[in-house]
């Protein structure tokens, strides 16, 4: 692994956590805890993105319980979608960032619903679980309730995260972005 990645990845995971805190402070109904992962995938490619996501997931699990490791496949999906989006210039404007983020939200929401149902019986973290509970309360079947609440939350979350990464990439000075050929492609330059 290059020393650039060794320097970049810890900072990216720290960005995941720090922005997660900001969002919590603003009491928004999203997590935004994958911004660093998406950023690294768009700057340095799939492998680096996956490592960032996994390190972040291991760290979260480390400080709050290894059960959350079950969500590791989501991290790989995030890195993959962000990488593909970058290759196709998906961060060139706000609209396409949101579209790619929304797509990831759909896929990721579905995948996390499966994980949540199998490993957690639908009970994971605050917001999503609350929505699930309300849906079951009004008579929806549990698997569908989990899927619906996961997807709605994830689409919002990932659309916003991609939008934010897009803004960040587009506002990088030329000198910095030119270090990352993939990022140049991501913003359509």
């Amino acid at each position, binding site marked *: 692994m290059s*020393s*650039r990645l060794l320097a970049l990845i*810890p900072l990216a995971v720290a960005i995941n956590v720090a922005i997660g805190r900001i969002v919590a402070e603003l009491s928004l109904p999203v997590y935004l805890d994958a911004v660093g992962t998406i950023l690294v995938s768009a700057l340095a490619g799939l492998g680096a993105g996956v490592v960032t996501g996994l390190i972040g997931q291991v760290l979260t699990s480390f400080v709050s319980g290894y059960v959350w490791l079950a969500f590791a496949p989501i991290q790989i999906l995030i890195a993959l979608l962000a990488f593909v989006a970058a290759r196709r210039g998906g961060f060139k404007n706000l609209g396409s960032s949101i579209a790619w983020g929304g797509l990831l939200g759909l896929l990721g929401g579905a995948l996390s619903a499966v994980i949540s149902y199998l490993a957690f019986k639908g009970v994971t973290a605050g917001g999503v679980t609350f929505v699930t509970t309300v849906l079951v309360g009004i008579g929806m079947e549990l698997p569908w309730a989990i899927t619906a609440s996961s997807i709605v939350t994830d689409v919002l979350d990932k659309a916003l995260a991609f939008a934010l990464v897009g803004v960040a990439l587009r506002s990088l000075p*030329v*000198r910095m972005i*030119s*270090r990352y050929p993939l990022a140049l492609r991501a913003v359509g330059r």
Partner: protein
Amino acid sequence: MSDVKFDGVSFRYPTGPADVLRDLSFAPRAGEITWLFGPLGAGCTTVLLIAAGLAPRHTGGSIGGSVSVLGHDPQATETALAGQIGFVTATPQLQLSGIAGTVWEEVAFTPANLGWPIERIRPAVDRALEELAVEHLSRRKPGTLSGGELQRVVIASMSVLTPKVWLLDEPATALDASGRALAYQLFRMQADHGATVLVASEDVEALALVADRLVVLRDGHPVLDGPPKTLLAGDAIWDEGPGSTAVAALAREAGRMVESSRFAAPYPITVEEGVARWR
């Protein structure tokens, strides 16, 4: 014998409109402190990055001419030069290993990466901590230190390697007066023991006293090269841009106002010289 040699080197950053270095040939000598000085954008930092093998490999860009460091082409050797070069910049908090729990571990980080046996690491780390007068911090967390303390630790974590080549980019900016004196004293000692010390700095007052040789760069090309005391006392260094010490500036300005041999070049460059001249 030169451990660092630039021969007709040109360099351009990937996004730069023009070459940062143009036909640069020079060789800092072993046993000397060579001081690179020039206005912003003159290319001093780039020279260090190239010698360290970081440019263009890490920065991107294109290089021409030939460079040799410790007998290697720094571009060709991948990480071979790591551990043989003392590389220090102005931002100590960005030079840390990122994983050391204590100052002692921070200084031991590079030797451990190089696979030195532990019997060699221990005395070397203790010696380096002592040289920078930071033994008392050895069990502190690097993250809790002040900028000045941190810079001493960063220099110690290079000095532990007893490198034969030092590449220093504004190494004393984060230091207080005593730290600065200590750092330059250390670099002086390293040079006296045969190391090649190359400093890029605007710290005119300090380097005027400690450097053996001054190379002034302008637009990536050496325009003046000689003993610092001579160059700093002359007019040419003003014509080329970077200027000289405060005392020399004062004498030069006075000379413009008053026609007197007392204020003519060569100008005094330290307060002591000024006092001796004008008393």
